[in-house]
């Protein structure tokens, strides 16, 4: 390990309007190391990396690459300086092939035919060197997420990246895919490349980085050698106070079955069977967790149970009422009326209307209830009063029901949705990705609230791609793969075993 700096930032500032996203950031990344940057959502990590990649311009401060001060005013210059970036939301053209995506911007001639052969050979060499196997002629949109990410890494390497920035790379991966990614990153490091890993997951930092820098509210608060620090120290640095990493809960006291799903089959708009004969039960007073890599039917299962999607076949019994999901046209309101609450996976797409005020969002879907109406009109003062109560109870910040939800952080938005669904006192709560894009402080709160709800004797069906979350919250874990339930385990089950189940290779183990 050499001691020269691959990247050095001095006094970098960046504001978006009134938001000071980066304040006087100093950062030194040593050549040939894996350097982690950790911080909560909204701490300014992504902004900082976007400045480094020329996507945004810093308001002030300087950037040095290999000891030379540089100006990076667009991505082309960043690429020229040997900086490559794998974005959290992939920058891929889904209708293109892998090869087309890789050569985009470096085609090697005005006619595509001029450069493709050379590009093919180069891709093959990169595949061999870095264990990055992908079929160059596959359509990117048809690839699994893990493979799409490899395409992103290949893109950067193809353009000669010496410094690779990865922004939250494991959010979409299975544990085994993540392990493979880390292997690749280590190979990259061994070949002298520098890796900057942006994440909010403490375990990843501990597992793979050499050094770690912590950001909090736009500031760089500390840099440590990974070997000299601990998860709890990092968590405290991130949040600014000590946090509980483990969820405290007593053993579940399951009672009668409140949700019974029989032989649910769902076909999506492409005509693909996405949920295959799923049967499951949720009892009052327990949390059933559905683990699985994203895209294995969990989303469709949730949406069907919530009445948003139509089933081909399937009967549910909800708090004593039986409903044939094929007979009814999907009607979320009817199912809600039977005692079901739904915290959708994607709060931006389904949970909130972000251009509406907080108090309006707080009654979405329940706006027909009599308590909010004043004859034909909405009773605004009643709605606002209730919104204020929820704001206080769920510690939603800023405590202003008139503010548009777009102006709340991810964690606070999630609390708004959660408050809306829980306060209706449902018998069964469907929860999808409750802590996606939510900061540690809010995660702690949300987890506690869900456990409380369980202890009040409600049934909770939890879908999450965060295996850690499932393991710490659920009383039973059901694993889904390719639309079917492939196994049920205790929360204490071995992580590798669950990982294998999630990857669909249960046969070899069981």
């Amino acid at each position, binding site marked *: 390990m050499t001691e020269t700096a691959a990247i050095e930032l001095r006094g970098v500032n960046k504001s*978006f*309007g009134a938001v000071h996203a980066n304040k006087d950031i100093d950062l030194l990344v040593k050549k040939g190391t894996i350097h982690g940057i950790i911080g909560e959502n909204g701490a300014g990590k992504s902004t900082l990396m976007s400045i480094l*990649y020329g*996507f*945004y311009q810093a308001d002030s401060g300087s950037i040095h690459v290999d000891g030379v001060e540089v100006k990076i005013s*667009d*991505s*082309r*210059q*960043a*690429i*020229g300086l040997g900086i490559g*970036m794998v*974005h959290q939301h992939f*920058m*891929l*053209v*889904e*209708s*293109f092939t892998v090869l*087309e*995506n890789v*050569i*985009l*911007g*470096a*085609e090697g*001639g*005005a*006619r*595509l*035919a001029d450069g493709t052969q050379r590009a093919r050979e180069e891709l093959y060499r990169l595949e061999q060197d870095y264990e990055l196997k992908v079929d160059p002629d596959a359509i990117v949109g048809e690839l699994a997420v893990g493979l799409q990410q490899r395409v992103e890494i290949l*893109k950067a390497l193809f353009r000669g990246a010496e410094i690779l920035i990865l922004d939250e790379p494991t959010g979409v991966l299975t544990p085994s895919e993540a392990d493979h990614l880390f292997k690749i990153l280590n190979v990259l490091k061994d070949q002298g490349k520098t890796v900057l890993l942006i994440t909010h997951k403490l375990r990843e930092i501990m597992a793979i980085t050499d050094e770690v820098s912590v950001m909090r509210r736009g500031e760089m608060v500390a840099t440590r050698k990974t070997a000299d620090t601990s998860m709890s120290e990092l968590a405290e640095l991130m949040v600014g106070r000590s946090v509980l990493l483990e969820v405290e809960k007593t053993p579940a006291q399951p009672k009668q079955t409140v949700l019974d799903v029989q032989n649910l089959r769902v076909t999506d708009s492409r005509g693909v069977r996405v949920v295959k004969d799923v049967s499951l039960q949720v009892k009052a007073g327990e949390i059933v967790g559905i683990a699985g890599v994203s895209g294995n039917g969990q989303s469709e299962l949730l949406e069907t149970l919530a009445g948003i999607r139509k089933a081909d076949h399937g009967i549910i019994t909800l708090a004593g009422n039986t409903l044939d999901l094929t007979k009814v046209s999907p009607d979320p309101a009817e199912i809600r009326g039977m005692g079901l609450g739904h915290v959708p996976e994607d709060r931006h797409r389904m949970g909130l209307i972000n251009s509406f005020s907080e108090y309006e969002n707080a009654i979405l879907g329940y706006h027909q209830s009599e308590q909010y109406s004043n004859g034909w009109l909405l009773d605004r003062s009643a709605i606002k009063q209730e919104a204020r109560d929820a704001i206080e109870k769920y510690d939603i910040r800023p405590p202003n029901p008139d503010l548009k939800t777009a102006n709340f952080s991810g964690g606070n938005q999630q609390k708004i949705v959660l408050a809306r669904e829980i306060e209706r006192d449902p018998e069964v709560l469907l929860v999808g990705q409750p802590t996606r894009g939510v900061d540690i402080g809010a995660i702690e709160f949300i987890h506690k609230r869900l456990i409380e709800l369980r202890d009040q004797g409600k049934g909770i069906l939890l879908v999450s791609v965060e295996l850690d979350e499932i393991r710490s919250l659920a009383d039973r874990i059901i694993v889904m793969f390719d639309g079917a339930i492939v196994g049920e385990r205790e929360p204490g089950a071995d992580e590798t075993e669950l990982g294998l189940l999630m990857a669909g290779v249960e046969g070899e183990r069981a």
Partner: protein
Amino acid sequence: MFENFQTLILILDSTVRLSTPLLLACLAGLYSERSGIVDIGLEGKMLGAAFGAGAIAYLTGNAWLGLLGGIGVAILLALLHGYASITNRGNQIVSGVAINFLAIGLTALLGQSWFHQGGRTPPLPKGGRFQDIVLPGAEAVKDVPFLGPIYYELLSGHNILVYVAFAAVPLTWWVLFRTRFGLRLRAVGENPAAVDTAGISVILLRYRAVIICGILTGIAGSYLSIAQSSGFIKDMTAGKGYIALAALIFAKWKPVNAMFACLLFGFLDAIAIRLQGQALPLIGEVPVQFFQALPYILTVILLAGFIGKAIPPKASGVPYLKERT
């Protein structure tokens, strides 16, 4: 039998003539929309170009200068659309509609104040109009049964812009799928952020697409005023820009499909003209309006999903915003 064949050839011949402006405008829209800029202003650009070409061809007596003038006007309007929708990230539909209104009003106003003929340009002098080209050997094979009339009537005897339009189809295909520019153009219409992070300017790329759109609508408009007819007439595009847009959707944004869609719509138009005032056996007289409405009806049916899905470029109509606000 022979008479029917002759009639068919004549209908097909006018199909080619009527499809030409549609095809040029449709390809123009294809470049623009493939880059992510929705262009409902094809109609206005064509109309502006038709006026520009008519006026300049009349004044100079030169069809080529007229064509250049037409293209110039269309490019200016295209740049206006670009400035509104690319640089200032405005609503592309609004900008396109505004351009259509601008063209309708401005051509009539300028036409009246310059030429005093109620908004039309005076008939073109000789040389101001593109003449039909007789392909080599057309006269010789004219009387050969079947193949003769096909070559003489259908393939030969069109003006240069017709051949330009049909040559633009394979050329567009090649540019789109075989060149670096085409790859980037398709990419920017699908995911501009991917193009941006690859170090390519989204703005420049989209401006280039919009300018190509201007050139092609310029040729389309010029065709109307200085090739198909001799001089500009008020509102002479008569909705062809919208039909071209319908054809583009019908063609699912693919160049070769676009040609067939435009030929189909041109064919319907040709039949409508042919059947004007004639009674069909069994059905009786069919109103011309029915055939005029057919392209739109077909497109609506298509959009309703009966003929398969038409999926536009993913980023079309969405202004590209790099920094969050």
